[in-house]
């Protein structure tokens, strides 16, 4: 999944660049600005993508990813400078000496895994329902719009909007995203997080939507997030290994469930019609 772009010309974008960068930048900015600024973080990233939409109409630049990162960085710095509130929460954001460096570090690829993990653990709050966990993960860590989530869950957009609103209000009360490596109360949420990832994979594997029960991108996201969780401490978590293995096993069969003549993999194949060659190799 997501491959097959090798043949594309140099000006072609990686298929899910916007989605991946959304996840990376939102997690980084929420970590940097604090969960109380969740809506602002989402706006800053969305605006950066819109800038790209505007600037790349004649074709993308040589390094689209770096372009997006720079744009988001400048937007964040401009916004922080105009708003003295951030100084109280993070002293390094209040000084011109340290501001640019702090933003750069937060948005660096090295900080990405930890930012996304911190956001995942913050989302899997016991005060929120399991379906809200999945909804928030789909929104913040998979980059789906409320309308896309509503289609996946087969409910109306207002229901998802309300669910997201309640969840955001809850997250915004947190003073910071804790580090799951050190905060024991966050690690206690691991079972909820594992359950949320399982539900996420399920949503991709046989989702509610009759038109598009298969969402390989969602399955890939569930596996990606499970692997992130594994990177946290690999030996100590056999359950996460089992979960990732289950995702891998079922993902291997995904291609045979998707009819090759459909460009958008929207319709499941019945067993007798499945293409079994990939399994027998």
């Amino acid at each position, binding site marked *: 999944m997501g491959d097959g772009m090798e043949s594309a010309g140099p*000006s072609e*974008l990686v298929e*899910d*660049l*916007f*989605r991946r*960068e*959304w996840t990376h930048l939102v997690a980084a900015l929420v970590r940097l600005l604090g969960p109380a600024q969740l809506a602002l973080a989402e706006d800053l990233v*969305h*605006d950066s*993508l*819109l*800038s*790209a*939409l*505007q*600037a*790349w*109409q*004649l*074709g*993308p630049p040589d390094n689209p990813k770096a372009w997006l990162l720079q744009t988001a960085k400048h937007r964040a710095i401009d916004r922080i400078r105009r708003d003295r509130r951030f100084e109280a929460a993070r002293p390094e954001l209040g000084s011109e000496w340290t501001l640019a460096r702090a933003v750069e570090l937060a948005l660096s690829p090295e900080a990405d895994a930890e930012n996304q993990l911190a956001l995942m653990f913050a989302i899997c709050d016991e005060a929120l329902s399991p379906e809200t966990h999945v909804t928030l993960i789909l929104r913040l860590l998979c*980059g*789906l*719009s409320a*309308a*896309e989530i509503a289609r996946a869950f087969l409910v109306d957009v207002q229901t998802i909007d309300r669910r997201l609103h309640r969840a955001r209000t809850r997250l915004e009360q947190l003073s910071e995203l804790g580090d799951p490596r050190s905060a024991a109360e966050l690690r206690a949420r691991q079972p909820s997080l594992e359950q949320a990832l399982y539900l996420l994979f399920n949503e991709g594997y046989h989702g509610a939507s009759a038109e598009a029960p298969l969402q390989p991108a969602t399955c890939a996201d569930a596996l990606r997030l499970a692997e992130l969780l594994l990177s946290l401490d690999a030996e100590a978590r056999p359950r996460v290994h089992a979960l990732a293995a289950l995702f891998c096993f079922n993902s291997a069969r995904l291609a045979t469930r998707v009819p090759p003549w459909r460009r958008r993999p929207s319709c499941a194949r019945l067993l007798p019609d499945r293409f079994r060659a990939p399994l027998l190799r």
Partner: protein
Amino acid sequence: MAKFMYIFRGGGYATPGALSPSELQQHLSRWNDWTNGLLKAGRHLGGQPLAHPPTGKTLRGRERSVTDGPYAESKDLVSGTVIVEAASLEEAAQLARDCPIFELDGSVEVRLVLQVPNG
């Protein structure tokens, strides 16, 4: 052949938050397809996309009074221009039909560019 200017209004940034990152990227790739089509056909003579969010100043009157920003509804804001070559206004309008801006409720104004002698 005559030159025409496409003036784009509204589109992507007039619909905040409604589109997911993937949908934005798909929209962008349709823009690229459309402009590449015009380029390959030798019709596209250059474009000037404008910055988002719309930053600018407006000078007005004999006093050159300066105000910040273009003041317009976002659906009426000019988001960029493109110059194309076409045999007639009708053909130029026809070429604009496939522009992806209409998916997001934007508009394209097609104007004949005056040929300046020795220009």
